[in-house]
């Protein structure tokens, strides 16, 4: 789909120079391997997943190519599935808001009160956990929330409880905490990048002209850092839509999110059913990316490593 735009545009001659079609193709040739990977290993598999989502599984778990919207209809007919989807969106939105608020305070502090040199170092310290293994970062929370984890041991040490409690792990709250933990660095990076470009004397100017601090904040600061806010939201919310490890590791028996549903369908060889759910997530992700493309500053988050 969008890949064709690149291909299509590529044929057009550049700027004012007139060069032969052969030369133009030669110029574009180095793009070919990346194009093959992008189309062959990303867009084609996703498109085929869409095709499979319209097919069915029979009793022998064979895939039959009969076209229908049955898999999608079944999904929305099953209250458990719909509840899982709703829960994913609610937890995702909640974690996004939490990350945004927590990260904003960090980024604001670093951008306004800390000399740039130190702010850069502090930012690096925030990013480091994000570059370490995602699997291990999630796993490491068991050492804190788990049955033998720090919280239980401290509470037992204080004599508040007599045996390890499972209260702190395997529920939605622990999933939420770990999700915030995992995605907080993204939000901090995105917000810092836009706050860094903000001239804070504008806030003083606004107040000189009679604005209350909250008015200055709302009408001067917020509009200028909107791209950073949107980037932060996207970088937290979208990954949570596809989050299946955290619920397995620290979530409860009922704590599954939508991506776990996909993975479970696939484990049970119900490929078309899984593909339908996966495609719905993919469509939502694509929609968000396209709607917010103008604001999305991926380089701020990615190229800073």
């Amino acid at each position, binding site marked *: 789909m*969008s890949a064709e735009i*690149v291909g299509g*545009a*590529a044929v057009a001659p550049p700027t004012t120079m007139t060069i032969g079609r052969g030369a133009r193709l030669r110029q574009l040739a*180095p*793009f070919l*391997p*990346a194009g093959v*990977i*992008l189309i062959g*290993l*990303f867009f084609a*598999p996703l498109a*085929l*997943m869409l095709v499979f989502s319209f097919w069915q599984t029979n009793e022998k778990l064979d895939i039959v190519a009969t076209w229908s919207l049955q898999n999608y209809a079944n999904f929305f007919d099953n209250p458990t599935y719909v509840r899982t989807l709703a829960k994913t969106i609610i937890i995702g939105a909640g974690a996004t808001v939490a990350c945004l608020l927590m990260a904003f*305070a960090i980024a604001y*502090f670093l*951008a*306004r009160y800390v000399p*740039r040199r130190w702010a850069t170092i502090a930012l690096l*310290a*925030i990013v*480091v956990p994000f*570059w*370490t*293994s995602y*699997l*291990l*970062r999630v*796993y*490491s929370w068991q*050492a*804190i929330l788990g049955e*033998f984890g720090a919280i239980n*041991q401290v509470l037992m040490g204080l004599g508040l409880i007599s045996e390890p409690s499972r209260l702190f792990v395997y529920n939605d709250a622990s999933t939420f905490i770990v999700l915030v*933990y995992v995605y*907080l660095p993204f939000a901090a990076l995105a917000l810092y990048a836009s706050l*860094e*470009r*903000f*001239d*804070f*004397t504008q806030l003083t100017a606004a107040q000189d002209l009679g604005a209350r601090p909250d008015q200055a904040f709302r009408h001067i600061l917020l509009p200028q850092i909107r791209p950073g806010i949107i980037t932060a939201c996207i970088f937290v919310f979208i*990954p949570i*839509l*596809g989050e299946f*490890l955290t619920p397995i*590791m620290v979530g409860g028996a009922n704590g599954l999110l939508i991506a776990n549903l*996909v*993975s479970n369908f*696939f484990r049970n060889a119900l490929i078309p059913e*899984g593909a339908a759910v*996966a495609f719905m*997530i993919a469509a939502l992700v*694509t929609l968000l*990316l*396209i709607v917010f493309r103008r604001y999305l500053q*991926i*380089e701020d988050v990615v190229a800073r*490593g």
Partner: protein
Amino acid sequence: MANRVDPLETMPVSRYARSVSRGLRLWFGLMMVFLYVPILFMIVFSFDESRTPGLPITGFTLKWYEVMLGNRVLLRALGNSLTVAAIVAVLATTIGTMAAFVLVRGGIRRRNAARIVFTMPIMVPGVLIGVALLIYFARVLHMPLSLVTVVAGHLTFTVPFVVLIVAARLQGFDRALEWAAADLGASPRRAIRHIVLPLIAPAILAGALISVTLSIDEFVITWFTVGAQATLPTYIYTQIKFGVTPEVNAVATVLLGVTLAFLGVAALILSRGRALSGRLRRRRPTA
């Protein structure tokens, strides 16, 4: 650009300003604790004697590191991970750099659309890429799942990373340097070889190191595309699912150290490169 003088020093401010700044400082400290405590616990537990890692620490030991080094399956998984990462890094860096040149200099219109296209594999959650590739390999291409499919899976997101990093660097490249080389008689090929490549080398190298790091750590896509041979993350995952094994903490600690070393080198190279091209730019008489 914001001036970083503490506003409290220079202007009359509300009486809350000082406590706001103090509160923010405290918050920053708390957040650092939040980010680092789980990692610290993991490291501490890797040296703990007890079979069930937890507080209180029963005693210092290197036992788990020894167990780790004696674990054949684990070492083989590590070997697989390193092999995959090396292949991925070489391929992704070459392919991504080539594409970045075309993207920045090929006169591609609708560059924003192209950027979205390269952003998508990074942004789309790994589960989706993983299951899509699983269907693709197993049901469409009828390819047996193996380390080859894992490499293919890792290329989907490492190539875009390299493209974005190298393209960002090329965008800021001062083409006057290349024109100077052409004036002095260098062919375009020579100018690229001797002027452009050395100057963007830091970005290319950083892209390679980031590819290695991402590939070694990648779990989700790997989980869906891996065959019988485990990689380190998939091995660790199965271990964790079977129950707490203290050597996992040791593996995690080593992995953390290696990742940090790699990233440190990448960051150093990138900042060196920035300083270098900055110097070159400054040396040029301003027009």
